[in-house]
């Protein structure tokens, strides 16, 4: 153990803090540009909601959810995704590292690849999305008119955390997949961004096979629709009862386990070209 400690004079937490601080300093050099980019990222979340708003100008409800309730689901899912994307967004770009031969440079360093990728490619502009989520989600909760109980408060706090876990797993799984199948990044988008899309709408509006897939295979519907349906007391289709909403965090942990296996499989499969 003594040798190991000498090998690694800095704990990985210290290392992570140092790396993150360096990223922060380097990106904050261009302060004006960075703030503009953060604002743009935040603005993007709002424009993406326009689609759902137009749909609801034609119908009183979507999957049993009114406009305000749809907005709540949307912001809850987007808050979870924004947190996941802040830390794991770069994992979805593993393919570029493989193609350009930059992965080896990271692999030979004495710190785990995951820690390096999370810290090295951290994009501060993604904070803009988190901020919009942190404002939009509580605002939504306040506006839809909920009879608050302790349990509902607890679930409202747990939901975006479970969401962050679920979406982080998606991004990590996508990274592992990209190491195995180079040139097929878009296929992983079906789960990562498809999951984000499906997770941000009332699941009751989805075709049954899609709803079942994003509940029991890729648990995107645990990130907003199921917990919000429980809090609001809205009926959900048979087979996906709203009490499932309480299992967002466990589902996220399960997904994280599966994603870790994918990531490891990807790493084992990867063969450098000797760059």
């Amino acid at each position, binding site marked *: 153990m003594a040798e190991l400690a000498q090998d690694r004079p800095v704990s990985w937490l210290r290392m992570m803090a140092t790396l993150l601080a360096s990223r922060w300093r380097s990106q904050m050099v261009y302060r004006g540009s960075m703030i503009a980019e953060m604002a743009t990222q935040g603005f993007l979340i709002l424009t993406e909601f326009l689609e759902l708003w137009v749909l609801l100008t034609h119908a009183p409800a979507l999957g049993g959810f009114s406009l305000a309730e749809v907005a709540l689901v949307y912001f809850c899912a987007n808050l979870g995704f924004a947190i996941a994307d802040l830390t794991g967004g770069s994992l979805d770009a593993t393919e570029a590292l493989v193609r350009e031969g930059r992965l080896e440079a990271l692999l030979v360093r004495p710190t785990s690849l995951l820690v390096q990728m999370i810290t090295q490619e951290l994009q501060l502009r993604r904070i803009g999305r988190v901020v919009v989520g942190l404002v939009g989600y509580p605002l939504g909760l306040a506006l839809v008119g909920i009879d608050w109980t302790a349990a509902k408060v607890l679930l409202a706090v747990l939901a975006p955390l479970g969401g962050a876990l679920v979406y982080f797993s998606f991004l990590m799984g996508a990274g592992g997949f990209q190491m195995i199948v180079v040139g097929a990044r878009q*296929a992983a988008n079906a789960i990562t*961004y498809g999951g984000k899309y499906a997770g941000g709408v009332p699941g009751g509006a989805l075709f049954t096979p899609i709803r079942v897939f994003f509940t029991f295979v890729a648990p995107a519907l645990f990130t907003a629709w199921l917990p919000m349906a429980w809090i609001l007391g809205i009926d959900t289709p048979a087979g996906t009862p709203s009490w499932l909403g309480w299992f967002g965090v466990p589902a996220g942990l399960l997904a994280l386990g599966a994603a870790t296996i994918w990531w490891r499989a990807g790493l084992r499969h990867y063969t450098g070209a000797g760059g």
Partner: protein
Amino acid sequence: MRATWELTAGGFRRHSRYRMGILAAMVANIMFGMIRASLLVATIEAAGAPVAGYDRLTAITYVWIGQALLGPIDLWGGSGWEMNNRVKQGDLVTDLLRPVHPLLQWTAQEVGRAASQVLPRFVPMLVVGALLTGLRLPTEPLSYLLFLWALLVAVVLSHTAWLLVGLLALWVVEVRGYLVAMMVVANLFSGLLIPVQWFPTWARGVIDHSPFRHMFQTPIDLLTGLADGRRLVLLAEQLAWALTLLALAALVLRRGGRKLEVQGG
């Protein structure tokens, strides 16, 4: 003429190589198609009546044609990002030195790329859509003929619009923000996410005549039958936008080319 043809053929050959990429893109297109079709159908069912001329089957058909068009039509501006890089890295000079007008070079390559996506992406996507949810396509051949023409013009129109944004790099240092803004506008108002007919009446006056509509919704309308009765008007307006933007791009190139300064080489 010969050079243009060779450039088109080259674009075709280059982009038909990425077979895995084509397959991967289709997987994503299918997933998004299913989600989008779900939402439109849920809206129509909740409304209890067809919405703005879209019944259940029309909406589903609209979605699958749209997903299929994402192959040939460069709606998300790959060419805009590429042009940004070409200006920044100085590759633009190579294009300017060639004996064919750069706009013609780029357009020819883009048409070749688009053509290479029709058989491996457009057609299979409609087959998948038909198998998954059913489709309703026109039976008279004229619709398909007009559709192919509208598709060609839409390919050129979308490409030119993105080129224009990318060419802004001749004047400003960072084009990224403009490209992202363009992406948002193109997503919303082209008819990719929601049919343009579904927008509120007060917004339609602008959206219905914008170039974005003609990049995507116009070819779709020709196959769903929603263009019936005003097909020629739509096609004329689409062509007018394409020619206008091409002329604008030629002008931008002339002005920008005078300002362009490339070091070394």
